[in-house]
């Protein structure tokens, strides 16, 4: 009964989405206020029914209703309740319903926050969001229905994939989806502006906080995914350039470009084409990611069950949601051109370079990801494009970008003296160069050219980002920093931290594989490992062999690491649970492998310097984003929007 209520709710939501998708847009085109006024109630109603639908799916999971096919495929009575809840997004159908729910939340937020905007524009934004929602709900109902029943009801379910039975499951997919799907908001703003035929500084001011908010979640989502796979998959890697990982990273690159491009449009009223195209492209790449993970077109451990029929449907949606707006752009592009001069040494020029380099990076990743498909489609057989390619090619646009980042942060609008800019930056540059070259050599005794260059660049970005805060807070010079400026410094500092982490982990990780018998010692990366042996361990839904290592440095005990080789009873899949000791300076990583020969176990031991920086950096970026969104000028806009009949162009705001 309950699942049927869920399905019916979803159908009602589709109807409301169709209303939201058609009448407000028609109303805006013809000036009918009553039709435009339907947008917000439709969005609210859609939200209610979608939440009901998702709640019924969770109800089915938490009550072990194995008559629902999706529940039977992804759950089990022995599964802890926490994982029964997260299993709702552990498979394709449920995760699509989750996608829809997240979009409904964003739409509701936009509906609530759009009161300061002209009705004609706001109804178009909600109309576009309605079109997106309708398409995805239709996709779910017709090809990926999570409420399909199974007859006869099985006695028990297939269990959730053991790799997903982990606390990371509660935060990584939801955060990522909120970011991913959130790209629909700037997309809707961009398409609405193209439909209205007007794209001005106010438009940029409205769009920017939404973009930053979605970007913050996307940053956190990708970071959580990297961290999660590091400790969950058991081999110590943190990024594999897997097609599914790339699917989330490409929107991130373009979203980063977008939020910077919006700054220019907001300030000078130029770069409108860049901004509109970036907004369309970022969401298109989100959809492309949805396509790649579910159509079977590319091979990935993260991919959902492949189904070309579903792939065709999503491709159709992609054609509509990308092709449509791009065609509209072609017609409206001329009207976006605006005058606004700037010289070579100016913030605009640096942000232009920023746009170009980030787009190059995104296209590089896209091309590398799709190349196996392209080569196969052209009839030239199967090739693989993996980390060796991406690691090398990604640096090509990104190292110059990192260098320019440090400089561009300190540039001013329109024009400035190149000499004064360089003069400001001499000290941070010098310190970065000196430390970047010497510190790795001091600690490790060797450094390749790339390692030295990357260390210098990482330190350079950090130093450049700290320059203004140091000046204002330590030397007490200059005007107080606004929240937006603090956010910028924090986020860019995070970039530098990340670069340092990536450099040191890539260059100086020590790893080895040992055959360990109880009582044996191993020296790895300056630590002594004593293997204490293996003992069996039982848990609710798995049984394991646990191997213990005592870790010592300089004779003193640092920690005891216990790694498990688990076999989950229902699916009978063996999985490795690595044991990790984390400090800010390094991780010590141990993964028990399998028994080899007489009483010995194979184990992989790694010492990974500065690996925490890989995730600390992006968290600082996200924190910087939060500061930016909380800046006074946006709060001013929110305050104004609660006062009825006041338009957005009040004198005190910019």
């Amino acid at each position, binding site marked *: 009964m309950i699942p049927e209520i869920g399905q019916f709710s979803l159908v009602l939501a589709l109807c409301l989405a169709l209303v939201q998708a058609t009448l407000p847009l028609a109303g805006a085109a013809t000036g009918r206020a009553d039709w435009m006024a339907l947008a917000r109630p439709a969005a609210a109603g859609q939200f209610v029914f979608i939440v009901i639908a998702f709640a019924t799916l969770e109800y089915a999971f938490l009550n072990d209703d194995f008559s629902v096919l999706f529940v039977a495929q992804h759950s089990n009575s022995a599964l802890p309740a926490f994982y029964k809840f997260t299993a709702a997004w552990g498979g394709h159908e449920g995760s699509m319903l989750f996608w829809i729910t997240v979009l409904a939340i964003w739409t509701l937020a936009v509906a609530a926050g759009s009161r300061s905007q002209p009705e004609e524009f706001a109804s178009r934004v909600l109309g576009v969001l309605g079109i997106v929602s309708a398409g995805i709900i239709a996709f779910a109902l017709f090809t990926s229905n999570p409420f399909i029943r199974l007859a006869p009801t099985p006695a028990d379910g297939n269990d959730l994939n053991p790799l997903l039975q982990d606390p990371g499951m509660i935060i990584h997919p939801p955060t990522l989806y909120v970011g991913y799907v959130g790209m629909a908001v700037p997309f809707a703003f961009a398409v609405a502006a193209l439909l209205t035929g007007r794209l001005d500084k106010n438009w940029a001011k409205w769009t920017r906080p939404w973009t930053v908010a979605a970007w913050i979640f996307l940053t956190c989502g990708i970071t959580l995914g990297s961290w999660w796979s590091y400790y969950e998959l058991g081999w110590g890697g943190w990024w594999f350039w897997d097609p599914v990982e790339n699917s989330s990273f490409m929107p991130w690159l373009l979203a980063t470009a977008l939020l910077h491009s919006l700054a220019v449009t907001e300030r000078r009223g130029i770069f409108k084409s860049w901004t509109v195209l970036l907004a369309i492209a970022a969401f298109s790449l989100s959809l492309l990611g949805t396509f790649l993970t579910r*159509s079977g077109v*590319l*091979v990935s451990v993260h991919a959902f069950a492949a189904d*070309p029929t579903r792939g*065709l449907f999503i*491709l159709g949606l992609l054609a509509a949601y990308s*092709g449509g707006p*791009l065609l509209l752009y072609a017609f409206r592009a001329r009207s976006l051109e605006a005058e606004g001069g700037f010289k070579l040494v100016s913030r605009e020029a640096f942000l232009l370079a920023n746009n170009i380099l980030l787009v190059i990076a995104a296209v590089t990743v896209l091309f590398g990801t799709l190349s196996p*498909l392209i080569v*196969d489609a052209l009839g030239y057989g199967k090739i693989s494009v993996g980390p060796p390619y991406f690691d090398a090619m990604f640096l090509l646009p990104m190292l110059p970008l990192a260098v320019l980042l440090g400089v561009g942060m300190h540039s001013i609008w329109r024009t400035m003296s190149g000499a004064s800019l360089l003069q400001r930056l001499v000290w941070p540059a010098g310190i970065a160069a000196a430390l970047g070259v010497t510190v790795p050599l001091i600690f490790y005794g060797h450094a390749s050219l790339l390692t030295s260059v990357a260390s210098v660049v990482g330190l350079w970005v950090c130093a450049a980002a700290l320059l203004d805060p140091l000046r204002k807070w330590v030397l007490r010079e200059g005007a107080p920093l606004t929240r937006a400026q603090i956010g910028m410094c924090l986020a860019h500092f995070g970039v530098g931290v990340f670069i340092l982490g990536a450099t040191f982990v890539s260059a100086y990780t020590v790893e080895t594989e040992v055959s360990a018998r109880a009582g044996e010692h191993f020296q790895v990366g300056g630590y002594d490992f004593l293997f204490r042996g293996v003992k069996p361990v039982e848990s609710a839904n798995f049984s394991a062999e646990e191997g213990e290592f005592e870790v010592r440095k300089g004779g003193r005990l640092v920690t005891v690491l216990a790694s498990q080789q688990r076999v989950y009873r229902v699916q009978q899949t063996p999985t490795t649970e690595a044991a990790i000791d984390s400090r800010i300076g390094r991780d010590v990583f141990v993964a028990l492998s399998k028994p080899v020969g007489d009483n010995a176990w194979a184990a992989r031991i790694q010492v990974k310097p500065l690996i925490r920086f890989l995730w600390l950096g992006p968290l600082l970026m996200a924190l910087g984003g939060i500061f930016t969104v909380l800046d006074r000028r946006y709060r001013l806009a929110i305050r104004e929007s609660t006062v009825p009949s006041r338009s957005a162009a009040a004198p005190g705001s910019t």
Partner: protein
Amino acid sequence: MWRYLIPLALFVVVAAFLLRGLNLHPNEVPSALIGKQIPEFALPTLADADAKIGSQDIAGKIALVNVWATWCIECRHEHGFLITLAKSGMPIYGLNLKDDRPAALGWLASLGNPYVASAFDADGTVALDWGVTAAPETFLIGRDGKVLFKHISPLTAQVWQHDFLPLIQAQCRASDAGCPRLTALAAR
């Protein structure tokens, strides 16, 4: 004016490849040995550890090489069809992969033996030379000793009809030498 259509044009190109990609199978990697001579090898036979079997025994006729093992559950599914094939006149050689000799011999004794002979590949090095990824896999070898085709997963009648037979018939059209005399079932 036309440059404003560039973004749309780029999108259409990408979408075209994605559409084509829906009909491809990225997981089905064809064998790298097709068109090349079978790898040279010499292994003890399964039945008798002192007897040897090698690439020269297979050459000179059209034959199948089937990779199997007792730990391979899916091998059981194709075993019946292999027996039928063998009875209809198709020479099949076995490559017993990383198996336990007594268990393998017992398996053949109880389920039937479709193989002319089975090579015993204890550690899998010969299988690696053949580009084997798992069991079961079946190779079709031409009479010149070149690999004509490789099929991964259990061999069925449909696969035999659709993939193997046409290749055999193509080779045998010109001359009869080395061709199996296939009777009834398989020769349809």
